[in-house]
């Protein structure tokens, strides 16, 4: 009797030890997730969700902004994106201004991505990923979306930072949105300084 009790106790111990190993390893596993997998997951989740839920096809719905907040935003490095978009103007901004620009630009980008994602239903997605190394990012994962007359190439630039792999640039057909914002920021800074960027962003975000 005591032996059986001891045995079942041992079994419990063993089971718990197994659990312990799994639990203690899981954060490590998340950290070494390869960028290709991350992008594949991101793209597949996005397109599937939009196709299955008509509400996500409305760019102004609360649902799409919730979806983006929950699924997209945590995987983007807005600090880095803002820094690249500001380019040489980044150094001209005070730390407080930098923080403000990151917040406001993050809001604008979130809305832009919501708008873009809501159009995904028209695409039949076949995700092929390939990795290449490019300047300013640690790795670029190239994907192809098939379905319109021409396949659409979407490349994700990722960097490996303290929070794991995060997206820091997206190009569609080789065209970078961040580069387009850099021209706008340059114009705004030369016209009315760093404050001009903050004002324009705030105005665009409706606040």
């Amino acid at each position, binding site marked *: 009797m005591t032996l059986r009790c001891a045995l079942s106790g041992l079994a419990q*111990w063993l089971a718990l030890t197994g*659990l312990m190993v799994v639990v203690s390893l899981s954060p*490590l596993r998340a950290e070494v997730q390869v960028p290709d997998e991350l992008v594949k997951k991101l793209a597949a989740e996005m397109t599937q969700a939009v196709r299955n839920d008509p509400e996500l096809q409305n760019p102004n719905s609360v649902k799409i902004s919730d979806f983006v907040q929950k699924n997209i935003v945590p995987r983007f490095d807005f600090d880095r994106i803002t820094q690249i978009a500001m380019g040489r103007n980044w150094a001209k901004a005070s730390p407080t201004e930098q923080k403000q620009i990151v917040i406001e630009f993050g809001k604008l980008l979130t809305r832009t991505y919501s708008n873009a994602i809501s159009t995904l239903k028209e695409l039949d997605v076949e995700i092929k990923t390939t990795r290449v190394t490019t300047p300013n990012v640690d790795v670029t994962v190239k994907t192809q979306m098939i379905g319109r007359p021409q396949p659409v190439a979407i490349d994700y630039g990722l960097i490996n930072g303290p929070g794991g792999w995060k997206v820091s640039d997206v190009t569609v057909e080789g065209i970078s949105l961040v580069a387009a914002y850099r021209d706008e920021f340059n114009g705004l800074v030369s016209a009315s300084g760093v404050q001009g960027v903050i004002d324009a962003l705030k105005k665009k975000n409706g606040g």
Partner: protein
Amino acid sequence: MKIRTASVFFLLAVLPNIAFAAPVKKMKPAVITAPLVEENEPAPPNDMLEPLNRATFALNDGIDFVLINPLVTLWNGIMPSFVRTGVGNFFNNLDDVYVGVNHVLQGNGSAAGADFKRVVVNTTVGIGGLFDVGAKMGLHKVDGDFGQTLGVWGFPTGPYLILPLLGPSTFRETAGRSVRVMTDPRSYMDTVPSYSLMGLEYLQTRADTKANEGLIAASSLDRYVFIRNLYLQKRALLVKSGRDKTSSAAN
């Protein structure tokens, strides 16, 4: 017993996590956030005619507002989507002939071969170009035009230029477009069918790009600058890909 199991669970599962959390973090690959590459920042765009361009841009916006947008809305409203797709395919098929010729001029024989294959398949099986059968066979449409050819040949882009009705362009692309118009068979047709066909193509093109125009308006701080950047990026890429393919074909 239950309390004991819980405390054992705590000891075994939670404590090691706390204890090993730090070493695990240290094991992570070093943060390889490369410093921003300064020379990666492109030179400011050549827009010496900016005041004139902004005026033409505003004029085009006005024309869009009073004429083009209502027409596009009407076109999208009365034509079922398969008709619109068919019309788009029809003009794409005509364009493919022109794309193929340009790939020949760029010395890119394999791309030209694919373009002409598309034209043959789409004109025959695709009933005069109404159906894009080529794409279903894996022969996707490729962009190409004479402005790109001039770029591949080494002509500089020149200043940015907004054309009335046609929108963003550059000196080089305008030269390319003029050659296109002069060599377009439609230029030698009777006025009425010629203008109707060109008008229809214009309408279809604008209908195709309407969704993108909305995206740009919603995302940009200064729409003029935003569009200029996207357009110049696109043209630079087209020339670069033409050059890369030509040099790889030559080797």
